[in-house]
């Protein structure tokens, strides 16, 4: 839980560092989803903990030595905020100066993310998708447990009866969160935001709903196979934009050929791949959460049987 604070703190740090987009992501990820996942795991595995700090002195010595070496290594690094640092010299000036003419998107981060380094981002999306598949494989339940659904629901309602105020306020808030996620998704060209952040916010809204109204209610609304399909569709959209631009005679993920006007093509391409990214991220997060929560409920209400 204090890890959640940590997420918040590092996000405010990123704000101070001018990294608006990064702060945005860290805000939605570090504070929300990662805390929730950690808690679910703790709920599954139990809070008991052995106080077995074995060989802490050895570890401490090792850590101190490595830390000392690293600090020694930083002596030659460029000073903080130094404009002529090597990291700021090679490709970045080009991104900063030319992207307005070449891509026409005010948010440089989006321009670099989606267009200049689109291939990287494609890789990242595939990694996220793969992680989602991995979680499904690891935590997929062996069989459906329809017979327990009614009972679980009963427990759920009794457990959530007490949160009446929270439920009503959330009912009002959730549409706004979803709307805001779409704003972030499509406003990513002009302000901080984009597919990654929007996906996480969208998933958070659904998770909030599932937490307050019970898993089975949420499962009735959010069709699991559909979500799993969507996570694949996102990757496919991204890849096929690249293929279409290849078919039109450009390079893979070179959006300038998508339209007669290169800048309009870039806009279209960025919009499409951000959509793909948002789709994948949102559905993978939802899938991961549902799998974890399923596991927890199965363990919670039917102990000794899953072993």
């Amino acid at each position, binding site marked *: 839980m204090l890890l959640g604070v940590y997420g918040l703190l590092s996000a405010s740090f990123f704000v101070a560092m001018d990294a608006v987009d990064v702060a945005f992501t860290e805000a939605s990820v570090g504070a929300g989803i990662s805390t929730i996942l950690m808690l679910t795991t703790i709920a599954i595995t139990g809070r008991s903990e052995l106080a077995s700090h074995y060989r802490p002195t050895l570890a401490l010595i090792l850590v101190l030595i490595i830390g000392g070496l690293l600090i020694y290594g930083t002596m030659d690094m460029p000073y903080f905020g130094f404009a002529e640092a090597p990291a700021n010299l090679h490709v970045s000036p080009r991104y900063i100066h030319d992207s307005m003419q070449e891509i026409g998107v005010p948010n440089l981060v989006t321009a670099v993310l989606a267009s200049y380094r689109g291939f990287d981002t494609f890789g990242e999306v595939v990694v996220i998708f793969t992680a989602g598949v991995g979680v499904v494989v690891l935590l997929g339940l062996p069989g459906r447990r329809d017979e327990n659904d009614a009972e679980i629901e009963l427990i759920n309602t009794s457990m959530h009866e007490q*949160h009446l*105020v*929270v439920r009503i306020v959330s009912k*009002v808030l959730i549409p706004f969160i979803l709307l805001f996620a779409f704003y972030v998704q499509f406003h990513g060209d002009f302000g901080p935001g984009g597919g990654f952040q929007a996906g996480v916010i969208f998933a958070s809204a659904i998770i909030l709903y599932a937490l307050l109204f019970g898993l089975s209610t949420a499962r009735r609304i959010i069709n699991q196979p559909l979500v799993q399909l969507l996570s694949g569709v996102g990757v496919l959209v991204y890849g096929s934009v690249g293929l279409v631009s290849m078919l039109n005679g450009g390079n893979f993920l070179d959006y300038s050929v998508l339209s007669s006007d290169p800048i309009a093509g870039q806009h279209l391409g960025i919009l499409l791949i951000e959509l793909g990214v948002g789709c994948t991220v949102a559905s993978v997060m939802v899938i991961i959460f549902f799998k974890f929560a399923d596991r927890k409920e199965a363990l919670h209400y039917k102990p000794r049987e899953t072993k």
Partner: protein
Amino acid sequence: MDTFISLVSGLCLLSGCVLAISSGIGLLRFPDFYTRMHAVGVSDTLVTALILIGLMLQLPDGIVVTKLVIILLMTLFINPTASHALAKAAIQSGLVPILNKEDEGKGEDTPSKT
């Protein structure tokens, strides 16, 4: 007129800061959970409102003010709800205000509703 607006905004910010710090001190110094809850729950929303209004007066520009108003509305919704849920969960978990406080048992009053 301009100086008046900036004066009002400064006043809002300043009072917000004073309240924020007092609630922080309350959070640290009060003897038990419910009194701390009181210190935070009551002042938090007010602090947010004051500082956001102060900021709104700083820059009377369409979209910025709209966003600030949205943030303000959300805070007005969210803060009391979170405090309420927290207090309720604490009561239901059996955390009695008097219990387990070695500090002279000061927190014997009824749990504050926020």
